[in-house]
């Protein structure tokens, strides 16, 4: 599939949004869905629906096979060693909660330390914060540098003999900085530290190879990868998923239930309690096929050109200030306009059909550090074009005019 006219694969771009063509620059928040994914959900419910893994009738067996088929596709897409290292969750948030909770139950002890970074999304901070309360765990933060990146030295500096887990973003949803996960993992493993990666922004934009990264856990958000909402993925090394206790209890995750004892199911069922997001999982296979048909190298090249173009024109625009300047950057451009609050920017852009995000993007720690209450963010997906950034720039100029800026 050619990326140059990929927009036509996404039905939403045929819609008028308040009489405008949609300029969608909010993919870091959630991506739009290609027709193949939307159709798959419809088709599954229309012709093939059944719950998975329970009944032995025809539809149930077929649905189970489809469900497991997506697991295999994900395994290949991220190059995991074993299919059972792929666990479906309700989102990346649940995946990160699962890791923090189960490590807390079995592996972490009072006084142990967890190292995060100032770039973390609340989803990769709040679940660890619970352990502060329940287990007296200490949390440290590796600092960003001037460019809005986390150099490996800043991680190294904060490692102590008590550090047990490093939980880090792969690609910052604010500065776009890509963290050197492979190097961080090498450093961490030399000290027996577990590495948990929040891959929400990494997965849609970067080539994934979890064996090469060698991280212990990698969390993915499917709705940011041209897939359905209500679905996330946790990759975990088999040794950890086998060793750690279950997260939620219920049907599907058990082997044997007696009045006086319960044994748990094998991987991956152990972590998939209750009825899962069946249709979403089955449709997500189409998202992966869609990404594969374009080719991740083409996506990387396309998005790099877009981000470079976007930065170039925004840099030329007086009073626009881009947040961070990481050497290795992907997916997003966050900015402020001197004299205009990000929410006013977003409302004014919205009138032209330009959808961006304004606020702290679930990264309050980072915004506090930068001493700004909020920022505006334009983020890209496969369907964006340079003309989207031209429109963004034009609407920013309108915004400046309303606020009487030069």
């Amino acid at each position: 599939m050619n990326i140059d006219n990929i927009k036509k694969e996404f039905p939403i771009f045929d819609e008028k949004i308040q009489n405008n063509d949609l300029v969608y620059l909010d993919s870091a928040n959630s991506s739009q869905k290609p027709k193949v994914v939307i159709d798959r959900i419809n088709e599954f419910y229309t012709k093939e629906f059944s719950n998975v893994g329970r009944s032995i009738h025809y539809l149930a067996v077929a649905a189970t096979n489809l469900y497991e088929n997506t697991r295999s596709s994900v395994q290949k897409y991220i190059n995991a060693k074993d299919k059972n290292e792929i666990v479906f969750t309700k989102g990346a948030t649940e995946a990160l909660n699962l890791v923090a909770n189960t490590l807390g139950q079995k592996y972490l002890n009072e006084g142990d330390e967890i190292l995060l970074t100032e770039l973390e999304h609340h989803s990769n901070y709040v679940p660890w914060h619970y352990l502060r309360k329940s287990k007296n765990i200490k949390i440290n933060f590796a600092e960003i540098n001037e460019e809005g990146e986390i150099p490996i030295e800043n991680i190294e500096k904060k490692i102590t003999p008590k550090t047990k887990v490093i939980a880090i973003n792969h690609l910052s949803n604010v500065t776009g900085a890509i963290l050197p996960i492979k190097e961080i993992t090498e450093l961490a493993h030399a000290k027996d530290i577990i590495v948990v990666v929040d891959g929400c922004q990494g997965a849609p934009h970067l080539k994934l190879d979890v064996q090469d990264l060698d991280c212990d856990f990698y969390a993915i958000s499917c709705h940011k990868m041209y897939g359905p909402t209500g679905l996330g993925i946790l990759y975990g090394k088999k040794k950890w998923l086998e060793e750690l206790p279950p997260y939620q209890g219920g049907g599907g995750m058990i082997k044997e239930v007696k009045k006086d004892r319960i044994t748990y199911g094998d991987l991956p069922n152990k972590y998939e309690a209750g009825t899962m997001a069946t249709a979403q999982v089955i449709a997500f296979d189409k998202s992966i096929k869609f990404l594969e048909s374009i080719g991740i190298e083409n996506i990387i090249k396309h998005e790099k050109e877009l981000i470079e173009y976007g930065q170039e024109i925004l840099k030329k625009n007086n009073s626009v200030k881009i947040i961070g300047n990481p050497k290795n950057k992907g997916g997003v451009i966050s900015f402020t306009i001197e004299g205009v609050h990000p929410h006013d920017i977003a409302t004014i852009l919205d009138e032209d059909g330009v959808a961006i995000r304004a606020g702290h993007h679930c990264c309050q720690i980072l915004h506090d550090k930068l001493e700004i209450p909020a920022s505006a963010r334009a983020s890209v997906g496969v369907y964006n074009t340079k003309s989207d950034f031209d429109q963004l720039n034009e609407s920013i100029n309108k915004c400046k005019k309303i606020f009487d800026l030069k």
Partner: protein
Amino acid sequence: MNLKELYQEIILEHGKNPRNLRKTENFNKDAKGNNPLCGDNVHVYLKLNNQRKVEDISFEGSGCAISMASASIMTDLIKGKSDNEAKEIIDDFLGMIKENPELKSTILEEDDKTKLMCLSGVKQYPMRVKCATLSWHTLISAMEDDGKQVSTED
């Protein structure tokens, strides 16, 4: 939807040059409010005299044009009113933003009503209603002196 209805001259002007953006000396009532989603925050100070009249009112804080303009217009209108009159104006304003097409209070001059009605533009932008109402909820809290921090996310 018309953006001009939201970003009218009066709002832009108050947003840029907010009135009473300072801290009242010898204030005897105050409250803080914040909107964690937007990062807006406001601290309202009041000086009520023995006759329960608002001798001075001021605010400190930062936020979008709508929230700054709203706080600015609010402090302008409340100054010099009795606490009961102030409560009536607050109820009237919040009622208008929520559902009423007009302001009903007879305390307000036509001119003041026009200013407040400029803020009615937020009704078309549900996400922005909080920006317009934050300082008003904070003022209620200051007058009740309940020591609660106002948050739009409770």
